[in-house]
Structures are given as structure tokens and as C-alpha cells.
């Protein structure tokens, strides 16, 4: 999966959890500023783990501040083809 593809998929998953316009989900946007509170973020991470069949370790999850961080973490955890 390319980074762009992951990004697109994550936008979809975030929007499934909360009604956030796509333009708010730029790589630099802080998740909190986009309107995701701590519980929303937990739910999004859960959906991501389910969808991508990956497990995001706590230390990596805690490091996610922006939407871009989220894409990076998923990219790192996806098995390289």
C-alpha cells in the first residue's frame, strides 16, 4: 500500500467514527484540533487495528499527535511487500 492509499483509507476510517471534513485531515492537523478527543482517537485506533489486521503498541499509539503521525504508524506496521 502506498502512503497515499493508507492516508485515503484512514480518512475513511476516521470519518466512520466521527463526522470530520476531509480538508481538516491534513498530515499536520493535530487530531484534537480536527475534533477527535482522546476517546474518539481510541475508537479510531481500534477500527484501524481491525481493518488493517495490525496491532498498534501503546508506545506508538501514545506518540500519535497528528493525522500524519497516524499514517506513519500504520505504514510502519504494515508488512512490507
Amino acid at each position, binding site marked *: 500500500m502506498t502512503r497515499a492509499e493508507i492516508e485515503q483509507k484512514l480518512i475513511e476510517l476516521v470519518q466512520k467514527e466521527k463526522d470530520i471534513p476531509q480538508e481538516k485531515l491534513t498530515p499536520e492537523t493535530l487530531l484534537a484540533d480536527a475534533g477527535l478527543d482522546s476517546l474518539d482517537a481510541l475508537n479510531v485506533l481500534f477500527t484501524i487495528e*481491525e481493518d488493517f489486521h495490525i496491532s498498534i503498541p501503546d508506545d506508538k499509539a501514545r506518540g500519535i499527535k497528528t493525522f500524519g503521525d497516524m499514517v506513519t504508524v500504520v505504514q510502519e506496521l504494515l508488512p512490507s511487500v
Partner: protein
Amino acid sequence: MSSRVAITGIGIVSPFGRGREAALEAMRDGRSGIRCIESIDTTGLNCRIGGEVPAAAHQGMFRGVDRFSRFALLAAEEAVEQANARGAIEPERLGAIIGTGLGGCETLDGGFRRVYKDRQPRVPPMTIPLSMYNAAASAVALNFGAKGISYAPVSACASGAHAIGQAFHAIRGGHADAVLAGGADAPLTFGIILAWESMRVMAIDNEHPQSACRPFSADRKGLVLAEGAAVLLLESMEHANARGQAILGEVAGFGITSDAGHVTDPSVDGEARAIRMALRDGSVADNEVAYINAHGTATRANDLTETAAIKSVFGSGAARIPVSSTKSMHGHAMGASGAIEIACSLLALNDGFIPPTLNLDKPDPDCDLDYVPHASRPARVPLFLSHSFGFGGMNGVVALRTIHGL
């Protein structure tokens, strides 16, 4: 400090549907709300009946919370609206005390089913905040802006009565001007029903759900599980009068005791002490009690013990007090039942009748009080008691005045 505590709002979600009118009609007609369970797949269960809240009464409303919290929110909303309470009570002086016996069963059952049955590696992150016992109290506080005393009393089947009693004391003690108080439970999940089946106290009569619950009848079969919520807006009399709000009733006294005996076998002593404490707490004379809404679970242990407790308190006067079990109509909604029964009693009594005990076809010779069998009875009741006796030997008795006793 306020010495008197008024009821200015009543909200209820029950097997009869959403709202006061549905419950009042069922009480008046003596109609059972117990039916075949539809909200879950009951394949593999012996007991497939319950006092289930109809889907149309709650589906799609207050989304994103557990079923028991949704019931509490709908009941609280109805109470708040009836009491015209939005913006009328200072948030710091408004509380939310919502009891529950089992909390968010739907969330827990669903979460663990994923792991144990579906072999999924994880449980959804909202499992804890949705299923915790104070989730309903929290949801009510959050939605209705209650920033004062808020928590969840947990005492099995007495939780709802304890919530209303503790809220009454909190207002009387000056800790709040008003409290949204009641109980909520939604135990009709596969695992919880199985657990109750193992206790062998369930009325298993899938072909005749409406006659399955037979309190005080010699041919009783046991209890019928149910779900729902009721929430009262309790308000200091001064506060309610100052804003010109209609008073629907009054909490007069509260008794709360523990058997410290057996975990599931009730005791006459513990129950009788709770009744006496409620009377004393409200300075109510024995002969003022004109109706008792019984705990009336339709188990032999309860029916006999409760009858004996009433007789031990009221002596020969017990014979003149009508006692009925509305559980014969709405089933046993665990921690919600005390609140549901207080709400149903108030609605019926304010309307001028006593709700009946259905299915009392074969009077048990060991239960010899006036149980108002089969049909509601026109009556003017100024003051009544509501009994709740929970597993763990925890008892709650609330004394209330109706509009005829204010």
C-alpha cells in the same frame, strides 16, 4: 435545608413502552408487558421470555451508550420535561443518582463474545466507559447538566430504591436542590439469562409469557427478568414552590438496612427493620399506610418473607393494607425495579386506583394479605410504601405521599 422533598417529574421506560401514559394504561387495565424476547437470539436458552422494552421505544435514540444508559436517558428526559426543569435548577445544585444492579451488560456481553466465541484479539475501547455501573448516572449528569451529587448506588434489586432514598436524604440534608434519581438495568443478554437460569429461580413458561409471573400464588413459578428505567425529578419543596412547579407527590421517608444473614435468602428481620425505619424517618404512623407496592418477585422465599415482614410491622393492621406486586406485569428489572415500581405506583395512585397483582389464581395459604388480585381497584391513597429487597440482603423501603396526601 429543606425538610420536605417533592416529586416534580416522572419518567419511565418499561416493557409497556416509552413514557408514563403506556405504563399508566397497563396498570389500569392490569395488562402484562412480559413477552418472548426479541432483542437477542434466544437459541440455547431455556427461558425465552422477559419484560423486554419494545425496540420502537428506544432504538436510534441517545446513540453511543449502553442499552441501560439509553433507558435512563429517555426516562430522565421525560422527567425533566414534565418538571420544566431545563434551566430552572442551578447546575451545581442538581444531582444525578441512578442505581443499577448489573450495569452495561450489553456492552460486556458483546465485548467478551468477540474474544471467547469469535476469537477476535481485542475488545472495543469504549467497553469500560460504556459498561461501568455509573455509566447511566454519568450519561444523565452529562446530558442534563447535573454538576452536583452524582453516583450510582449498586445493591442488586434494591439499587433503584436506594437511589431515590439517598437522593431524598441528599436534598433534605441540603446537599442539593434537586436530583434526577432512579434506576436502570438491561440484563436481557445471553450470558446473564443463563446465569439466572442456573439459580433455578426463573419462571420458565415460554408458551404463556403473560401468566408466567405469579406473585403470592401457590402455583408460582419464579421470577421473570425484565429491563427498563425510571427516573424521578426530586426537588426541595421550597425550590419547587418558588418556581411555581406542580407537585406530583412527595418522598416522605426512607429505610435502608442489611440482613447480614444469607446472601440470597431474605430475612423477615432485615425487611421489617427497613419498613420501620422508613416510617420513623418520615414520621409516618402505621395507620397512614394505605398501600404497599411489594417487592413481590414470585419466588417462594420472597413472597413468604415479605408477607411475614409486613405482618410483623403492622400486626393485625396488616390485613387492611392493600399490597400488590406490579412485577406481575413488568417483571423484575433488577436495579431498575424499585424506581419503576415507585413510578408505576405514583402514576396509578395519583390517577385514583391501586395497581393489581396479576395471575394470583391460587392464593397461597401462607400469604394471607390483600394482594389486589387480577384487576386494578379504585381507591384514594394518600400515602404508600415501596419495598425493594436485593440479593446480598440489602433492603430499601421508600414512603411516599401521592397528590392526595400533600
